[in-house]
């Protein structure tokens, strides 16, 4: 946060704004799809229609149909729900556990405690997320919930690291000394000074992690370890499209495209937020 930012020219700032707006638009599109799917979808997701199997795009089925004659657009819309749910829950888990750990590691003066937290973090980081998810589905059975938890746990280290480095930076600032000499307790300092000042960093991390968890959920579902039938999920759509890749590639292209758009959207939004949330830039430009 104290990193000196290069003075930005109007053109550069406009480009930055554009990045942010594109990201925001993509995210809004996904959210909108999920919201609309709650009240309306073009067709019913689970009723097969043998008459309309494996159609390509048409007026009735803009994105075509799958091997059971189910509408792909309907499935894409419903898949957005799972995607967002997985993202929100796993980022939530990672943030709620990772940020306090990071702040604690950054604030404590007990050296072994911060050492313990950060080495535990390293350990978790060395453990492949996919392996963790496989272990989870082996123990709890495959499903969306174990997948979300596994993705969330795997993302804890990223939050803990970001929170710790931000905390260390804030703790070295004079206003923390001022708060301590005003007799504020460590918890009060953490809540009143540290958290608001590292919020920008954490939010940026959250949007990047969101993108990663979308990707992870798709991967797990593709392997059959994530969302189970009959719940629609983009990853599972990809898996089911495999055998028709030669004849009906749209079946893979549509979910693949939306996974890519979601990841891109959250990444771009994260980049844009990083610039906007920098407190030294606020109100001065």
């Amino acid at each position, binding site marked *: 946060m104290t990193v000196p930012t290069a*003075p*930005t*020219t*109007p053109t550069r700032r406009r480009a930055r704004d554009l990045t942010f707006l594109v990201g925001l638009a993509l995210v809004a599109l996904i959210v909108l799809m999920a919201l609309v799917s709650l009240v309306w979808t073009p067709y019913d997701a689970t009723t097969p229609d043998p008459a309309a199997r494996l159609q390509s795009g048409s007026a009735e089925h803009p994105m075509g149909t799958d091997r059971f004659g189910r509408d792909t657009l309907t499935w894409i819309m419903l898949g957005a729900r799972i995607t967002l749910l997985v993202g929100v829950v796993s980022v939530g888990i990672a943030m709620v556990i990772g940020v306090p750990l990071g702040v604690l590691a950054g604030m404590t003066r007990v050296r072994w405690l911060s050492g313990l937290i950060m080495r535990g973090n390293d350990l978790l980081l060395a453990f492949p997320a996919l392996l963790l998810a496989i272990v989870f589905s082996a123990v709890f059975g495959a499903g969306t919930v174990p997948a979300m938890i596994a993705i969330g746990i795997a993302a804890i280290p990223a939050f803990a690291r970001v929170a710790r480095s931000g905390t260390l930076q804030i703790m070295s*600032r*004079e*206003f923390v*000394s*001022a*708060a*301590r*000499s*005003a*007799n*504020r*307790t460590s918890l*009060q300092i953490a809540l*009143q*000074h540290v958290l*608001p*000042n590292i919020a920008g960093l954490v939010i940026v991390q959250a949007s990047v992690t969101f993108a990663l968890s979308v990707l992870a959920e798709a991967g797990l579902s593709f392997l059959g370890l994530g969302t189970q039938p009959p719940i629609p999920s983009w990853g599972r759509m990809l898996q089911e499209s495999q055998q028709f890749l030669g004849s009906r590639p749209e079946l893979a292209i549509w979910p693949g495209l939306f996974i890519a758009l979601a990841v891109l959207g959250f990444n771009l939004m994260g980049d844009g937020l990083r610039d906007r949330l920098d*407190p*030294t830039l*606020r*109100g*001065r430009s």
Partner: protein
Amino acid sequence: MATPLLRVRDLTISTAQRELVHPLSFDIAPGERVGLIGESGSGKSLTSSAVMGLLPQELTAGGSVELTGEDGNLLDRSERSLAALRGRRMSMVFQEPMSALNPLMRVGDQVAEVMRLHRTATGDAAQRRAVELLEQVQLPDPVAAARAYPHQLSGGQRQRVMLAIALANSPDLLICDEPTTALDVTVQAAVLDLIDEQVRARGTGLLFITHDLAVVARVCERVLVMTQGEVVESGTVEQIFTDPQHEYTRGLLAASDLTATDEHGRLFTIATAAQYPGTAADASTSAGGNTASGGGAEPDGAAASGTGPESSPAADIPVAAGSPAVGAAAASAVGTDTVAEAGAGSDESGTAGAADLIEVTGLVKTYTRRAGLFRSHEVQALKGIDLRVRDGGRMGIVGESGSGKSTLLSLLSGLATPTAGRIRVGDIVVDPTDDRGLTAMRRDLQIVFQDPFASLDPRMSVADIIGEPLQSQGAPRSERLARAEELIEAVGLDRDSLTRFPHQFSGGQRQRISIARALVTRPRILVADEPVSALDVSVRAQVLNLLADLVDEYSLTLVFVSHDLGVVRHLCSDVAVMRSGEIVEQGPTDQVYDDPAHEYTRALVAATPTLQGAF
């Protein structure tokens, strides 16, 4: 001045939206030493960057910059042809020597690099020449220094290396941008002497940029005064200092002069500069006998002879009516008397040992620095400090960087644990593990921090910032707000400020907010850690006046830490001089300054640039 070395005509610097530097013109004759003076944001550094062709891309320069011997306008040149000039015909020394040197390259190689680049020397010859240059800038053991990396040298030594690099190709023009601002006074004096000597010996033209008038007087022949992107006045050092024409120059001079005060005993600010008699008056009297830093005149005598000539020119000013001026002079005489008496009175009570509010005995602080996995070495930041501050006293603690003064403060305020020794504040023994004791102590002792940009949480409103110390006492929101309103007015800001955020304020205003926060718990002791060293000269005077007023009004005991001897002399009744973790000398301010007993104090006093010593 027939053919100036550097000819700047109608130079403007602007962003896409607005003009930052308005058309300005100046010449530098060969071998001439010109000072460019201004406060932050005045455009002085931009001007020098434009001359060097180093402006950031988003800024554009207009007008013309001509260097004798080069064709045409330097501003129109390509980056490539400018690069051929930089380091050969003109070179620059920057403010921060650590960031201006490459940390991964040996110092000797960095000096040799400039010569290799311009092919003024090659191979071993460049290396040998580099050692010679390091010797010329008076680095001890230049052969060893050439092999050192920048982090192995001290700040002053690094700045010498920068100077060696800048002078390597014997440029015609040397630009120094605040070269000594980051250095301690004693080091600053040596570096200034070195710049002066080297520039004279080589006949190099010098453009010296600084905010410090006393420094300019020491090095330069001619001065340009810049404010808000405009040169408001230029002339020889003597003209500017003795007969300033522009009101901003007068204000700057008055605000810089910490020995001059108006009839209320307050420092001059830009606003009150009209009454400032000027350094000429002071200089003449100091010749007469009021040698402020020289002989051992009694403080009383010095004060009396000081007020005389100060008030008489005030009476001469036609604008101010005659009779009030005379009245003011009389008042000032009375004022100094009572101050002197008060000082004497409390001195007696001090010797009686009646009321030492702060008592520090045998304080030791040792840091263990870990170097590598198994090695560690100890750094003694404080080596047994004894200090007493009497109730109502104003104790100044003076020292250079690394003297341990900041460590002393953090121990005093319970932010760190001493290795040995004892601190008593009031009836409480400070112990960072004793929460209840600390709570009670912190109601009485509050701190004003050095950096007004780092000491206020950017995410909190001013009302919350000022009210924070009350929050830990459990005061309800309404009371916090009421107190914040009271204090924001006490420090001279309006109530609307309370809903705003720190980044909307200037440095001086932020320091006022910081002072308001420190006073909100109605403490008995105010500890100030270099509260004005990050501020511009004109703002500094205002903040010092405010501090002095508040200390009187709230009858505070002040502990004031600074590297600036002038500031401490103005504000404090007693002073302790610290060096490498020890107090080398302490006593009443006038006695320590006018008749220093320890050689380090003498060196410090002598090295401090003063306006009076300028001629």
